[in-house]
């Protein structure tokens, strides 16, 4: 088939198959995608511009709203950069509590992505079960932080809310009933022959492509890339260095591998949460040595549910940051669709795109 017989299929920016606006121009030969053009910029909110005009504490509120799913990861990464500039040591109890919310966020994010995968594949029952389980996690997060989203949990030098003994007991009780439910869900998804046959071998991102395209998070780990910031880099605002868990890595790089990585990561998250609740150190949740944020540069990295998040903060000695650059994981992962979608069936475009767990608002900030 020659090039003149190709057909350009435009999807978006407003389209029935899209949750958020993006434009995909798929050049197809028959049903096979031969070229992809991605256009973004439809939900740009000028967050970095806003941050250059707000003080540090207003900034925490702003960055919480970069992403509705990772609204704990963003402020944690932001305050971690400021703490680095000011040399603030975060109390151990606060580091554990930040990690606790971070892992609950990972579970609810991975459940949401699994639910979406089930919905795209027409498996509505499993979609509803995943969403129900996610609701329970959100209830738990509300119980701990006081909010279902935009948790207002972080501040410079620690966290804003402690967990008392009774609350720890309640959280443990909730987790004890949630864990078998979620583990059963994982087993159901991973043993479902329809789901496996529909996702195995499609949307493959090879190890080399994953490295070349600098993808991060579950997308990278599903292609065999040994990359998880929780293990690989220092996170002085978190407590991962004191906790035992495994990196989840798959080799095939297809949609099924990405689903598997997220599901198995939830098991590791439960492990982490149990250790936190068991060993939560006593002590303050907020530093007592407050210092003004001096002139400097802070580079903070955090393993958000979708992958490595980075905040690059430059301060000039005033209470307003000079420059805050945010690199959300979706910014690199979505770009990889340019390669993943090539030679795939048009019918698989939705499930492949969904398997990247794209957050268009997050990446466009």
């Amino acid at each position, binding site marked *: 088939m020659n090039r003149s017989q190709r057909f350009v299929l435009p999807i978006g920016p407003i389209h029935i198959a899209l949750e958020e606006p993006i434009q995909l121009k798929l050049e197809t030969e028959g049903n096979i995608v031969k070229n992809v053009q991605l*256009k*973004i*910029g*439809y939900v*740009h909110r*000028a967050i*970095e*511009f806003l941050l*250059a*005009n707000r003080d540090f504490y207003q900034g925490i509120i702003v960055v919480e709203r970069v992403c509705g799913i990772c609204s704990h990861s963003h402020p944690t990464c932001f305050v971690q950069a400021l703490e680095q500039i000011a040399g603030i040591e975060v109390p151990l109890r606060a580091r554990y509590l930040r990690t606790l919310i971070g892992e609950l966020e990972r579970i609810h994010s991975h459940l949401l992505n699994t639910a979406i995968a089930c919905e795209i594949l027409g498996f509505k029952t499993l979609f509803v079960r995943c969403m129900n389980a996610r609701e329970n996690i959100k209830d738990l997060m509300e119980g701990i932080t006081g909010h279902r989203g935009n948790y207002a949990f972080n501040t410079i030098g620690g966290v804003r809310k402690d967990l008392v003994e009774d609350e720890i007991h309640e959280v443990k009780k909730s987790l004890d009933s949630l864990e078998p439910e979620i583990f059963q869900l994982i087993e159901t998804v991973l043993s479902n022959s329809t789901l496996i046959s529909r996702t195995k071998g499609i949307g493959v991102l090879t190890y080399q492509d994953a*490295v*070349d*395209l*600098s*993808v991060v998070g579950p997308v990278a780990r599903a292609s065999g890339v040994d*990359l998880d910031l929780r293990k*690989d*880099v220092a996170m002085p605002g978190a407590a991962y260095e004191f906790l035992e868990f495994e990196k989840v890595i798959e080799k095939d790089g297809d949609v099924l591998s990405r689903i598997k990585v997220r599901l198995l990561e939830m098991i590791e998250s439960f492990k982490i949460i149990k250790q936190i609740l068991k060993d939560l150190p006593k002590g303050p949740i907020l530093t007592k040595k407050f210092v003004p944020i001096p002139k400097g540069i802070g*580079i903070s990295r955090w393993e958000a549910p979708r992958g*490595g998040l*980075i905040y*690059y903060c*430059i301060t*000039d000695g005033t209470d307003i940051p*000079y*420059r805050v*650059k945010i*690199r959300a994981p979706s*910014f*690199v992962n979505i*770009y*990889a669709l340019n390669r993943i979608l090539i030679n795939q069936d048009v019918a698989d475009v939705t499930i492949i795109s969904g398997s990247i767990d794209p957050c268009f608002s997050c990446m*466009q900030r």
Partner: protein
Amino acid sequence: MRINLLDKAKKLKNLGARYITTVAYLKPDTGDKVVVRHLFDLNGKLEELTYEAEFSETLESIKEVYPAVEWSEREVMELYGIEFSGYPEEEKKLLLSSGGHPFPLLEVEKQKVSRKRHE
């Protein structure tokens, strides 16, 4: 045009460095140049390629070695007015393609530097 960026990027790539992101900002002390910084991860440690660009200078793109740099370079072009080689005119914008004030972050930072000078 500076010609050694691509070579340096190739060396980093050969060492196994992974591209993270590109940060740009107006030099806070003098306000006379735009600092452009490509960040890389090499075995968990941060490496960087940094250069200070004149306003509207054209810099060598490292897209050939690190394809993922494309959106970051386009973002720098539209937010700071720095050019990277190898981009057709219609691809120079990324986030603000529907319009908006040209080089918004450059303008904000120019105002900050100017305020600081008059304090």
